[in-house]
C-alpha cells in the first residue's frame, strides 16, 4: 500500500472509531447502555426481514441522490440543489401518476420520466445563471431549494390537492400504478434494485464511456480541458443536469414506491444526506452507495432505537453530519474530478 493510501486507511479507521465513540457517548447521555443501543440499531436495520426491508426502502432515494452528487462532483460542480430537485421530481410524479388509472406500466414509465425531467429542468435556471451571468451555482441552487419547498406546499393545497383527504396531500396514485412490494410485510419494492442499478450505471458511465472521461477531465482540470479542446462548460452543465435528473428520479420513486402521494413537508433533507454520503464515500459511485446504505441502516435502526431504549432517533442525523465534518477537517479542500 502506498504511503498516501495507508494514511487514508488509518484516517478512515480513526474516523470510524471516533464515530462509534461518539455514538456511545450520545447513548450514555440519553441514559441507555451502549450494548442495548447497538442491539436495537442492528436489530432495527438488518435484524429481520421487515427491518431489512425498511433499510432498503430508505436507501433507494439516498443511493440515487448520492450517485447524483458524485456525478456532479466528478465534473467539478457541487450540486447543493439535490434536495429541491428531489422535491420537484416527487411533485411531477404525483401530478402525472393519477392521470393514468388504467395502464400501469405506461403510467410508471411516464411518471418516472416526468420525475427525472422535472429534476433536470429545475436545475436549468442555475446552469443558465452560471454560464450567462457568472452566478455561482451554489447560490442559485440554494435559492431554488427554497422555491421547491414552497412549490410543494402550494401544490398539495392547490392544483394537486386531494379534496377527499383531511390534511393537505396530493391525489393518490392508484394501487395498480404504485410499485408493489417485493415480499409480503416489507415496503421494499423494485425501486431499490433499480436505484442500485442506476448508481452502478453512473459509475460505469464515468469510468468507461467517452462522455464520462471528458467529464472527469473537465472536473479534474478545467484549464487543461479547455486548452486540450474539450467543451468544458457544456460538459459541466450536462453533469449538473444529469445529477439533477437522478435526484428527480429519486423523488419520483419515493412517490411511486413508498408514499403513493405528495405531502408537505416531503422527504427529510434526503438531498443533503446524499451529498454527505457522496463525500464520505470518497466521491466514487461505489463508496457513495455504501455510505448511503449505511445512512439508511442508521435511519431504520434509529426508530427501533428510540422505541426500545428511548435514545432519540435524531442520532441518525447527527452521526452523518459529524462524520462529514470530521472528513472535511482532515481532507482539506475537496477537489473536483478524481478524489
Amino acid at each position, binding site marked *: 500500500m502506498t504511503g498516501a493510501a495507508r494514511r487514508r486507511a488509518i484516517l478512515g479507521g480513526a474516523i470510524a472509531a471516533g464515530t462509534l465513540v461518539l455514538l456511545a457517548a450520545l447513548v450514555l447521555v440519553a441514559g441507555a447502555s451502549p450494548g442495548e443501543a447497538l442491539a436495537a440499531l442492528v436489530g432495527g436495520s438488518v435484524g429481520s426481514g421487515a427491518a431489512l426491508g425498511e433499510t432498503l426502502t430508505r436507501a433507494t432515494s439516498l443511493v440515487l441522490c448520492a450517485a447524483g452528487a458524485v456525478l456532479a462532483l466528478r465534473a467539478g460542480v457541487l450540486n447543493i440543489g439535490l434536495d429541491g430537485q428531489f422535491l420537484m421530481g416527487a411533485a411531477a410524479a404525483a401530478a402525472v401518476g393519477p392521470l393514468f388509472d388504467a395502464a400501469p406500466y405506461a403510467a410508471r414509465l411516464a411518471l418516472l420520466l416526468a420525475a427525472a425531467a422535472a429534476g433536470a429542468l429545475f436545475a436549468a435556471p442555475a446552469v443558465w445563471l452560471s454560464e450567462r451571468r457568472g452566478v455561482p451555482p451554489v447560490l442559485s441552487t440554494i435559492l431554488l431549494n427554497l422555491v421547491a419547498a414552497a412549490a410543494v406546499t402550494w401544490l398539495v393545497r392547490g392544483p394537486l390537492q386531494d379534496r377527499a383527504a383531511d390534511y393537505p396531500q396530493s391525489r393518490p396514485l392508484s394501487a395498480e400504478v404504485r410499485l408493489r412490494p417485493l415480499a409480503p410485510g416489507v415496503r421494499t419494492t423494485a425501486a431499490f434494485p433499480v436505484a442500485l442499478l442506476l448508481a452502478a450505471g453512473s459509475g460505469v458511465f464515468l469510468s468507461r464511456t467517452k462522455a464520462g472521461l471528458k467529464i472527469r477531465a473537465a472536473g479534474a482540470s478545467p484549464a487543461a480541458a479547455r486548452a486540450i479542446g474539450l467543451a468544458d462548460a457544456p460538459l459541466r452543465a450536462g453533469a449538473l443536469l444529469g445529477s439533477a435528473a437522478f435526484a428527480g428520479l429519486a423523488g419520483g420513486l419515493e412517490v411511486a414506491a413508498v408514499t403513493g402521494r405528495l405531502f408537505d413537508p416531503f422527504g427529510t433533507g434526503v438531498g443533503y444526506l446524499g451529498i454527505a454520503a457522496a463525500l464520505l464515500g470518497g466521491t466514487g459511485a461505489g463508496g457513495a452507495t455504501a455510505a448511503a446504505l449505511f445512512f439508511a441502516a442508521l435511519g431504520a435502526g434509529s426508530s427501533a432505537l428510540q422505541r426500545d431504549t428511548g435514545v432519540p432517533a435524531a442520532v441518525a442525523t447527527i452521526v452523518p453530519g*459529524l462524520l462529514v465534518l470530521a472528513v472535511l477537517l482532515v481532507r482539506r479542500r475537496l477537489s473536483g474530478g478524481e478524489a
Partner: protein
Amino acid sequence: MSGFLEIALLLSAPLLLTAAGELVLERAGSIQIGAEGTMLIGAFAAFAAGLGTESPSVALAAGLAGGLAGGAAFAAVAVAGRADPILVGTAWNLVAFGGTAFGYRLLAGATGAVLEVPRLPAGALGLPPAVWAVFALPFLVHAGLRTTRPGLRLVAAGEHPELLRAQGLSVVAVRTGAALFSGAAAGLAGALLVVTVSPTFVEGMTAGRGFLALALVVFARWKPLRLLPASLLIGAAGALQVRLQASGGPSVPYALFVALPALLALFALAVTPGRGGAPKALGAPAP
C-alpha cells in the same frame, strides 16, 4: 402600537438579524448555508436556559453563546481548515437539526407536553429593547464596513484577499471574526424566536428562516441597508397571514412567503449583468 405592526416587527427581527450576520460573513468571502442550523441551536439553547432559569434574558444570552460556538466550529473547519464552506454548512445543518431534536427529546421527554419559556418583557412601544436593537444593526454594519479600518479589511478579504496577505495581515483572522459575528447573530436570532414569537421549542422551528436569510442577502445585493425593507416586507406578510388565520380566512402557509424573496433574488440575479454584486472571492479558500 397596533397588533399588526407589532407582529410584523417581531417576525422581521430574527430574519434581519440572521441576514445581517450572514451578509457580514459573505462580504468577508465565506458563506455559511448552515445559518439555519445555528439559529436552531440558538433557539434550543435559549429554550433550555429559559426552562432552567425562568429568565428570558439568560435565554437570550444562552442563544448568543450557542451561536458563537457554532460560528467557532464553522471557522475551525471552513476558514482555518479551508474546507469547502458549502459542504461544511451542509454537514452543520445535519448536526444542528439532529442535535437539537436529540436534546429536545431528552429535555421534554416523550410526553409531548408543551414546555413554555417566559417571553421577553415589552419595552418601548410594546416591543422588547432587544428587538429594537436588531433594527439598528443594518445601519451599524453599513457604517462599520464603510468607515472603520476593520470594516475595510473585511471587504478586502471578500474581494481581494491576496491584498491583505501582501500587507502581512491574516485573511483567516478576518474571516474567523466574521464567522463568530454571524454565528452569534444567528444564535441570537434563534433565541429571539423562542422568547418573543413562540414561547417554546419545536423541532425544526426555524422553518427555513436561515435559508431565507441567504436569499435576502442576495436580494439585497450584499448591501446592508437593503436588508431592512426586504425583511420588513416579509415580516408584514407574516403578520398578514396571522391576521388572516385569526379571522378565519384561508391559511397561507409560511413556506410561500419564503419562496417569494427567493424568486425575487433569482430574478435580480438574472437581470443584473455581472455577478450581481457578489464579493469576488466568495467561497474561495483563504490565501
